[in-house]
């Protein structure tokens, strides 16, 4: 899995990385996170969101291999 410091995680939580998945929890989590952060998020808020999403991927790594492959490209 990509290191938590990789820019891809920041792009994911801010909605800059176009990303589709069929995992409902991830779909909802990402939508809520990008909506909460808005267009001009504070760096601290982005880092908090990255930690949350990264934690989600760690927990569900077994069923998110397809999604991890997309993020790792």
């Amino acid at each position, binding site marked *: 899995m990509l290191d938590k410091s990789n820019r891809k995680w920041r792009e994911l939580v801010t909605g800059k990385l176009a990303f589709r998945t*069929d*995992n*409902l*929890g991830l779909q909802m989590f990402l*939508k809520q996170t990008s*909506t909460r952060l808005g267009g001009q998020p504070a760096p601290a808020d982005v880092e908090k969101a990255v930690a*949350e999403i990264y934690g*989600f991927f760690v927990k*569900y790594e077994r*069923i998110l291999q397809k999604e991890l492959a997309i993020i790792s490209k």
Partner: protein
Amino acid sequence: MNSHALCTVQETAELIRSGKILSLAGDESLLAQLPRGSWIAGTIPYFIAEDGGVETREKIFVTELAQADAAHIQIKSYTIDTIKNIARDAPENGYTVLILPATSPVHIEYANRARDYEDMFIKPIVGWISGVHLSDLGKVAPKVANGAVGSLLATEAVAMHVALPDNKMAVIHILNLFRQNSAGDVITFAQTGFSATTCRVNGAEVVLADYIATGKLNLALPLVADYNGAQINTSFQDINEATRQVNFYAPVFAGIEYRQAAAVGDYVHEFEALAQVAHTEIAFSCNCILNYLYGELQGRKTGDLNGPVTFGEVAYQLLNQTLVYLDIQTHD
């Protein structure tokens, strides 16, 4: 016995006494007769059962929760002040079945704010909004029941937290007949809530009721938001002609872009086709009363996805016009 089936009060009581872990749905008068045990329940007289959609006040719909045992469950009631702890209270690996009484303050609180609760989306929460017979709307309060203490509750929610072994994983799925009409107007709201008077349509502020009237919108078609590929509905309830307020069955959220759903060709047959999906071990399922009504599901089957017909569905947050099911996967 099928683990998702309609049962008599006597049959249900026997299952409770035998130590089964149950999620129940039925008429309040039936639930009040049950012994204490490891069960939660909500009131509703509509179900999708083995023989299809059915309305009855004579039987209880019993869901024997998959992979649940008494040593690894927790039943809790939640008030408007404690519901924010629902995901934090859930096990690290497992799932939670949550039932909330329709129109109660705890239902409104959960609908508006659940997506901001700590640990929400990290832990699977599935469930439904309890209701009443449609002829009793406004006359009888929907309720939930905490079987551990034997109480029927009109103002609290009830949850069953189920811990799973490490090789099991709970995954929530939804089946939604509706898709955004990609050519439709983009509708946004300034405030989160179950009602709205104004909104923005393609950026221009309008009175929503006027927009609906002018466009002759079919209110059976919900507003749909795209959540990274998931189509999430908010259903129209009614329009207060005096105040011009449009009411919904779930909140619209500020910052989310909605479009009305594209028209559905044949609601009944398309819903039947949608239900024929691949899934493994179904722990829980429920379907919306609007699908039951508009999809004419009385007497019709929806694959093997049986359960209560509800006044709202919970798949993490409150949904509308959606079939929700929980899948338990094994990863050895």
